């Protein structure tokens, strides 16, 4: 697949471009002396109360996991959507429709359950 060459070339070019900007600005820019106050995390000038890490709600983790599951289900719809037209003209459209219908029904059931079980609630 020849088309990979320009993709990689552009990726490398952009990465080099970005690196060049970062390096050049770090060379040109002034570097005043660092001190303790400056090194602290910026919190609008108030002295920091906690260190960088504190407990994060499990909600983020749950959202990410549910995202993966639904994302996989959506991915399966792409090959279906792209061949659906052909399947109709070739005479097995109803079968394709029914196959995805059942799948989407399970999808909707899952989504409905998530909503009912308050897994998607953010206070």
């Amino acid at each position: 697949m020849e088309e990979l060459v320009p993709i990689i070339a552009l990726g490398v070019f952009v990465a080099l471009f970005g690196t060049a900007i970062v390096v050049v600005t770090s060379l040109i820019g002034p570097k005043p002396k660092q001190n303790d106050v400056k090194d602290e995390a910026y919190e609008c000038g108030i002295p920091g109360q906690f260190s960088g890490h504190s407990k994060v709600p499990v909600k983020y983790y749950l959202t990410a996991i549910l995202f993966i599951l639904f994302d996989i289900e959506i991915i399966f719809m792409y090959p279906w959507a792209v061949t659906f037209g052909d399947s109709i003209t070739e005479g097995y459209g109803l079968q394709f429709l029914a196959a995805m219908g059942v799948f989407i029904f399970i999808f909707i059931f899952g989504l409905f359950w998530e909503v009912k079980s308050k897994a998607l609630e953010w206070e």
Partner: protein
Amino acid sequence: MGSDLVEVLINSVKLVLIFLLMVQLVPILVWVERRGSAFIQNRYGPNRVGPFGLMQLLADAVKFVFKEEFVPGKGHKLIFYAAPVVALIPGALAFAAIPLANTFHLEPFMFLGESWGPYDINFQGYNVGIGIVFILGVSSLGAYALLLAGWGSANKYSLYGALRAVAQMISYELALGLSIVGAILVYNTFDFHSIIAQQAGALSFTISGRELGIPFLPNWGIFYQPLGAFLFLVAAFAETNRLPFDLPEAESELIAGFHTEYGGMKMLMFYLGEYGHMLVASALLVTFYFGGYQLPFVSHVMIEDMLKSFGLGINMANVLTAFLFFTVFMIKCLIFLWIYVWVRWTLPRFRYDQLMDLGWKTMLPWALANTIVTAVVVFLARI
């Protein structure tokens, strides 16, 4: 990449040009944003430097270069520096896969004393056959830049901003991915060129063999997928963390979100990434629902013939036509980019739970409904 030297050269120049186009558009967009905001809020905005304040951007850029170099004391240096670079890549890779003008044909021509050609040149960085799926894949990598920035700064507000941003991005990625399924059902392809070609001419439906036409409307996807287009637009706003979905940068809660500790050029690179995503979203919207680079009712062959009748050479006519279509595409894109600015000063910011509710409980079911209805209608219309 090409069969001979000139084609490789053309393709390489094209790649760099498309990337620079994206980068160059950003200062102009920032200017539009500032002037537009000022216009909407009944004030002046930047108007001192150069005509209409246009030189303000140059002044800003120069200022950015001379900004102080700073890494937070507890931050991780490598990750802190890597994050803005990573932010640039997904937008650039995605934008280069979108066709910006029609494929034009170059007859053999003389160059450096040799004959080269003929060539068929796509006005796009590379033509990936799977178009939209490739773009979804590449732009899903955008989350890493935020995560790296949030963690590398070792600032809890940065980290929370990044986590929020990522949770929001992935929630709306579902609605974004699903809203396109309806369009794919209509077009039956992933390929952008084919999608755009199907939107040529006047609006005409084929319902069980009979053809119904509306001659005064173009055959654009928006008339087949109005709900899909709207869902896509809203999801794109959330994907790019723009108002009213700019929760990751909610100043009153999180200072400035994941880029709190960044300044100068590194900050600007995050902006480049964000505006790049906006540009990609607008370009996708134009390609899927608004006819891509096409002028309504006018095909590129007609314009080429017209230019040829003025006595221009074939190559010249083709190149000029491609340039005209490129301009049309950019104008369509800029209209949507203006909508981004407009919405920013029209709608207030959501609360975080409202945002997640909207993504999971409103957008996702509606996108599903859109998919189901489209599938049934397509089935009934074609059977």
